[in-house]
């Protein structure tokens, strides 16, 4: 597939999924319910997806409350989600997640305004990494994560239900929007759902492969990576450079100037590879 086409394809996928998940009930009817492993907030009244995050947060309560067919369907949906995550890994984040699209829009706006991005200092990175694991624990055990989740405040506002935001909601939505404006996919680095799905990246069908011998260490892959993944740049021996944070945006493959150095494989078959840039 052409390199430019993959970015366009990704953006179109994000646009469609955002529209369907946020405004889907308007044209699909209120009976449509999708349970996807993305941050499509359940608090969007016109949304056609509740997102698996709500199920995880209230899992113990749901299991206790549900009986018979409801329990069976709940377990079935969860198993389907787990299967989907195991097959696709974090492809969901890069191609489906509505909040990811919101962040992409902010980045596009920043680039149009020619405002430089910020880079998180290496000194403070361990603290942010710790924050990521704390958020994951809060998420898994349902300890107040939903009250701090920016998606809960931003997505309903985008859907036209922002008139009841509390002061906390305004502050969280504002700060997260500001950070995501300056740092590409800032929330995705700390997203607990993404962290959970990242574990499946190693066994998913999609892999980023690198030919270490052909790499000239130009840093192009590192500079363009929205998730600040160093492994793609640093690794020289192993061919599989798929990181748990990788959202398969393919920007590294697009940016790589060396032919056939970086590639994306699906079921072991190479479907996208880096090409020499001709200026």
């Amino acid at each position, binding site marked *: 597939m052409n390199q430019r086409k993959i970015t366009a394809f990704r953006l179109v996928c994000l646009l469609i999924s955002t529209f369907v998940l946020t405004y889907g009930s308007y044209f699909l009817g209120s009976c449509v319910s999708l349970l996807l492993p993305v941050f499509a907030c359940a608090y969007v009244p016109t949304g056609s997806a509740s997102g698996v995050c709500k199920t995880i947060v209230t899992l113990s309560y749901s299991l206790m409350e549900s009986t018979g067919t409801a329990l069976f369907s709940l377990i079935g949906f969860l198993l389907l989600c787990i299967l989907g995550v195991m097959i696709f890994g974090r492809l969901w984040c890069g191609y489906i997640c509505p909040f990811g699209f919101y962040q992409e829009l902010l980045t596009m706006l920043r680039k149009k305004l020619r405002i430089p991005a910020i880079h998180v200092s290496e000194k403070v990175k361990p603290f942010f990494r710790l924050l990521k694991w704390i958020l994951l624990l809060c998420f898994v055990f349902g300890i107040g994560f939903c009250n701090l989740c920016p998606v*809960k405040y931003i997505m309903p506002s985008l859907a036209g239900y*922002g008139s009841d935001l509390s002061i*906390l909601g305004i502050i969280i939505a504002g700060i997260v929007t*500001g950070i995501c404006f300056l740092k590409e996919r800032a929330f995705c680095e700390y997203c607990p759902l993404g962290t959970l799905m990242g574990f499946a990246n190693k066994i998913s069908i999609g892999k980023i492969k690198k030919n270490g011998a052909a790499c000239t260490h130009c840093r192009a892959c590192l500079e363009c990576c929205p998730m600040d993944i160093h492994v793609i740049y640093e690794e020289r021996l192993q061919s599989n450079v798929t990181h748990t944070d990788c959202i398969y945006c393919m920007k590294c493959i697009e940016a790589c100037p060396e032919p056939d150095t970086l590639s994306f494989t699906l079921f072991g078959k190479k479907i996208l590879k880096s090409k020499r840039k001709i200026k």
Partner: protein
Amino acid sequence: MTLKYILQELYQWFTYRMEDKKARRKFMVVIVMGVLVLIAVYAANGSITQKQSGSIHGPSTSQPVSTSNTQTASNTQTTSNQDQDQGPGPGSTDTQQPTLLLSAIIISSVMGVSIVSSTGMQLHYRKKHMDCIAALPVLYSEETMQ
């Protein structure tokens, strides 16, 4: 002076202006502001419709309610809201103006907080020279390759 001439002049003036980088940036700002205003108006519109249909409560007032996952989010929202709804009934027009104003205030507050936070971070990074690209650690497999 014909319409064709006016349009041609306008087109020339516009292309001349677009060549200038600063003008282009201003133009982009105007477009972005327009989009944001449109979003704000749409959000306000949506909230009015929501008020009129009688399901008012938003995310801040409701906690996650465990229901069957086959239900839609909208159904859950409506069910949980019906018990808590204390607002005016459907079709009350006297609440439209305050709701519109409230939505506009909230959206502008979110935008304001985001602008303040992003500007603050930008200034902080510029002051501390943290926006420069930090040197990466030595490649751990470099020695092995040699």
